[in-house]
């Protein structure tokens, strides 16, 4: 891995496979032990810097850091100096003075992780930057799909819903394609960004295309990002045309959703409660994958820097 994980574009397919293999081998079964902790990052400091409300992602990162035995500090925007007008640059310079090993950042603006990486020596992990990207979500989704389907080459996935406002869609289009999957986007025109077809996905405006795919990836209707603009005639009409239920699925089709779900908006309640969705597997995968990312971002960097380490490997690996 590189020093930072800012975008899914930072990773080659081989690196993605390698990180996910680490997650599978080292971290997936950890939750089944009584002692759900390994000493791997003992003494390391991880700062989770969250400028947006988040429950699942921040919980997942916090738990991942703690299960690696790191000291994890959570900084929430509403409780920090941000409210006092401090700039992001100054916040990060201040945090950097504590010499953290990793800064995990969730921010409402595109590029904030790359921005703070200029002001800290810590490894920076993007936990969602505005509508930009969400690389760890992408990795955990691929992990979940691999567990369900094995090889992903040629697998067909439809991403359905509010693609315009979705960082998850942006990362997943890139990540899924890198894994050899075929991606179709399904949304009304107003919820698709202009020019999205150049990202390498097909575009459809109806759920009819679900007949031709293996996996359905649902996105939350992000009403809070719509602001004052009216993008669909009414939510009722949107639901009638784009809400996915069991009746839309054929045998063997699985449904993923990054959460949190809006029951009755993009996903029918019955589907949300059925075994056809992998939503909770995604959450479980999220923990293992984020542990793997934090572990690898530290040890890979140490290995690259430390020639003595490389020599030690000669001694033990052969």
């Amino acid at each position, binding site marked *: 891995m590189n020093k930072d994980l800012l975008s899914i574009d930072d990773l080659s397919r*081989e690196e993605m*496979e*390698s990180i996910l*293999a*680490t997650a*599978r*081998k*080292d971290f997936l*079964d950890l939750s089944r*032990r*009584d*002692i759900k*902790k*390994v*000493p*791997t990052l003992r003494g390391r400091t991880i700062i989770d810097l969250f400028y947006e409300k988040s429950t699942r992602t921040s919980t997942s990162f916090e738990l991942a850091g703690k299960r690696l035995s790191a000291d994890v500090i959570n900084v929430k925007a509403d409780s920090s100096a941000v409210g006092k007008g401090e700039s992001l640059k100054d916040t990060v310079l201040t945090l950097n003075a504590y010499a953290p090993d990793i800064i995990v950042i969730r921010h409402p603006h595109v590029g904030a992780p790359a921005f703070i990486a200029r002001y800290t020596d810590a490894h920076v992990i993007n936990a969602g930057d505005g509508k930009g990207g969400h690389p760890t979500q992408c990795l955990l989704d691929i992990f979940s799909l691999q567990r369900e389907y094995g090889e992903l080459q040629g697998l067909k996935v439809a991403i359905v819903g509010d693609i315009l406002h979705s960082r998850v869609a942006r990362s997943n289009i890139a990540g899924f394609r890198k894994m050899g999957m075929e991606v179709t986007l399904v949304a009304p025109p107003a919820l698709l960004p202009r020019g999205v077809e150049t990202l390498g996905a097909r575009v459809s405006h109806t759920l009819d295309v679900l007949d031709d795919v293996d996996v359905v990836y649902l996105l939350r209707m992000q009403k809070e990002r719509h602001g004052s603009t009216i993008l669909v005639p009414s939510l009722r009409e949107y639901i009638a045309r784009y809400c996915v239920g069991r009746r839309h699925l054929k045998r063997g089709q699985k449904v993923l959703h990054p959460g949190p779900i809006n029951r009755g908006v993009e996903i029918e309640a019955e589907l949300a409660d059925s075994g056809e969705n992998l939503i909770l597997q995604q959450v479980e995968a999220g923990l293992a994958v984020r542990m793997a990312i934090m*572990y*690898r971002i*530290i*040890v*890979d*960097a*140490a*290995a*690259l*820097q*430390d020639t*003595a*380490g*490389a*020599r*030690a*490997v*000669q*001694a*033990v*690996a*052969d």
Partner: protein
Amino acid sequence: MPADQVGRTIVRIAHEILEKTEELDRLALVGILTRGAYLARRLADHIGEFAGREVPVGELDISLYRDDVAARGSLTVRSKLTQPEVRGTNLPFDVDEKIVILVDDVLFTGRTIRAAIDALFDYGRPARIQLAVLVDRGHRELPIRPDFVGKNLPTSQDERINVRLREVDGVDEVVLEAVRDE
């Protein structure tokens, strides 16, 4: 050490374990990945044969417990993790109250064994942990000694012991090599 000698040594260690273990029903073998796991499997087969009962055997991956971060990274970088045969810890039995024999190919500084003991304790509380190694090459950096030794091979720091096993390397042998400075 040629192939037949490796085989005889393993048989001998199996006998010693059998002799020195009073409560066979609590015995379990845990091999440290990668080559220790194959040795543990072979020892378990021999002991099972001699004693007429199956001995539980597990595998321990100590990479998360190592004390040298850089070496861990190099290992993950080097060991092609995309390949499906890469294995992690697998202990198909309850570790609590077991007499666990840790098995490794070479005992050197003792740091690997320290990590293995730590890892094992995260899975439960064994009644006793003992150590079986095919080769002890000396140069200990921790107060750790083996309970069962195949062969003591005094070495210098700049030599390397290569243990090859037929399961992974196609041949059983132990070779002493001088390390070239790169």
